[in-house]
């Protein structure tokens, strides 16, 4: 049997405004991306090939599902237009559908099944027709039954109401509480009701209360309370003394100090109240760290002075190696300069500056790279105050990033906090560390982290 999963943009229109930048098809329900529930269902129903069809973008889905080999099925993709009827969709995929029993799942549907064994049997025996439908979509089977037999009185699956942010929230909570085994992805801690991923750091005095699901690469700082009934995604920091219960934190979220997140969905810097559908964007980094203390506010000049001093020190330290090594590299043609345009969210304009790159072939290149000579020209920018010495990795003006990068506390800098922390430098992941330090930054800490970033670069080259 083959399955067509047909999901149109209008089907998930209710969800997309809440989480810009997250494709609803890979939006996690509990800890599993939505599309995987449909794939699992199709496989249990006896499909060996699945085609995911949409009138919207599919690249993120494709990045997650790839060719389906992970599930042992063929997954392929196709585009349709928004107003194509199901007949047209089948026509457009006629070659794919030919001579096969066909299961068509149409709509942004959540399917509940309790008895996994019965599914395949039931589908093999069922004659064609609509097996389930609601106003949001349908499950249709085409072709003649594979085997004959007595169908069970009740279909072993049903459609769940899944058309509002509140449904979404309740469904996740319900799965976590009542049906974790058939649905969620396994974690590393196999205690019942407690799924914990890789690289999870739990601080002193932090509490984890079951049931709970925690993803990979999560830091729970001291005194924080996570759970009960919390779903925490990957790349998440929950800062000191914060509470997260009966809530969902999607990937790449930073929850600041002493905050109380109860009955909420958080994604990046967006917080949603699922009951009322109200959402706020936490635009300033200090909102992410409890009641504003005087320490952060008004320290702008102070902080700049520190940055200028650090920049000056580094310039003094590096100018000699710079003058010695760079001409050599230039002769060898290994010193390339490229200009880099980045968006300064603070000032709301694009800035362009030169950022050299070094081909680290041979000794001189490696040495120059270890000494961060490629960052040398940028240090003057930091001295002038245009950028910080340490902060966020400058985000290049690129259409891909603009939408999703309204990160709080973004502050373009010579070195990034991610480099200091040895966190993978990648716009999405590093944004979390950057938010953490945006909320925790102090001039002295900045200085320490700058040195750490600088040494890390030396270290990574020496290895």
């Amino acid at each position, binding site marked *: 049997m083959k399955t067509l999963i047909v999901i149109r943009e209008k089907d998930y229109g209710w969800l997309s405004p809440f989480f810009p930048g997250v494709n609803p098809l890979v939006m996690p329900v509990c800890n599993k991306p939505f599309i995987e529930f449909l794939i699992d269902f199709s496989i249990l129903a006896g499909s060996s090939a699945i085609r995911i069809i949409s009138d919207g973008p599919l690249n993120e889905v494709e990045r997650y599902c790839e060719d389906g080999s992970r599930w042992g099925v063929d997954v392929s993709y196709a585009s349709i237009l928004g107003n194509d009827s199901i007949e047209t969709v089948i026509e457009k995929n006629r070659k794919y559908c030919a001579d096969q029993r066909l299961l068509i799942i149409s709509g942004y549907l959540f399917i509940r099944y309790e008895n996994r064994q019965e599914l395949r049997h039931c589908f093999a025996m069922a004659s064609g027709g609509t097996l389930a439908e609601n106003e949001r979509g349908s499950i249709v089977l085409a072709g003649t039954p594979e085997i004959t037999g007595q169908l069970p009185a009740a279909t072993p699956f049903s459609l769940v109401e899944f058309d509002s942010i509140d449904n979404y929230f309740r469904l996740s909570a319900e799965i976590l509480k009542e049906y974790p085994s058939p649905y969620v992805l396994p974690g590393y801690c196999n205690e019942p009701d407690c799924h914990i991923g890789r690289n999870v750091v739990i601080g002193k005095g932090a509490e984890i209360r079951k049931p709970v699901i925690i993803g990979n690469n999560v830091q729970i700082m001291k005194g924080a309370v996570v759970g009960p009934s919390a779903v925490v995604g990957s790349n998440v920091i929950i800062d000191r003394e914060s509470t997260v219960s009966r809530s969902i934190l999607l990937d790449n979220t930073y929850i600041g100090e002493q*905050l*109380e997140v*109860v009955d909420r969905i958080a994604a990046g810097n967006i*917080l949603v109240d699922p009951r009322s559908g*109200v959402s706020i964007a936490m635009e*300033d980094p200090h*909102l992410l760290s409890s*009641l*504003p203390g005087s320490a952060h*506010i008004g320290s702008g000049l102070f902080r700049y002075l520190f940055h200028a001093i650090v920049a000056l020190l580094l310039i003094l330290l590096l100018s000699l190696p710079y003058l010695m090594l760079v001409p050599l590299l230039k002769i060898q043609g290994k010193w390339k300069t490229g200009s880099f345009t980045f968006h300064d969210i603070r000032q709301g304009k694009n800035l362009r500056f030169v950022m050299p790159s070094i081909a680290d072939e041979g000794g001189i290149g490696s040495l120059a790279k270890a000494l961060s000579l490629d960052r040398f020209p940028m240090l003057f920018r930091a001295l002038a105050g245009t950028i910080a010495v340490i902060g966020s990795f400058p985000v290049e003006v690129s259409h891909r990033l603009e939408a999703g990068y309204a990160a709080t506390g973004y502050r373009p800098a010579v070195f990034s906090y991610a480099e200091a922390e040895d966190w993978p430098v990648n716009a999405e992941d590093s944004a979390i560390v950057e938010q953490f330090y945006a909320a925790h930054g102090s001039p002295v800490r900045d200085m320490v982290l700058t040195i750490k970033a600088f040494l890390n670069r030396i270290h990574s080259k020496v290895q």
Partner: protein
Amino acid sequence: MDFRIDMSNGQPVGIASLDGRLDAENCGDLQTFCQSWLKETSRLVFDCTGLDFLDSSGLGTIVSCLRKSLEQDGDLKLAALSPQVSMVFELTKARKLFSIFPDADNAVRSYASGDKA
């Protein structure tokens, strides 16, 4: 920022209407105004009907206004928080510091029933 004194309880209650955004840019104004309001009465109500955005600096200012009115044996009560603004108070636990009312009239009346000041 509109300010008026309500005498319906027999005692003066100052009602300030906040509107638009209250953020780092304009929270200094509120700070200044609040100083002068406190000279007239220490019992304040901030009517937030028109307030649609609050950031941490704004929140900090409201908290400092509360502190000053408490120092003068008064209080600062909040009325008509929009869901967005309310979320900021909940998230930061600042909600626990304030008495919050659905509208300004209720907030004013609560000063009469309370026996403080």
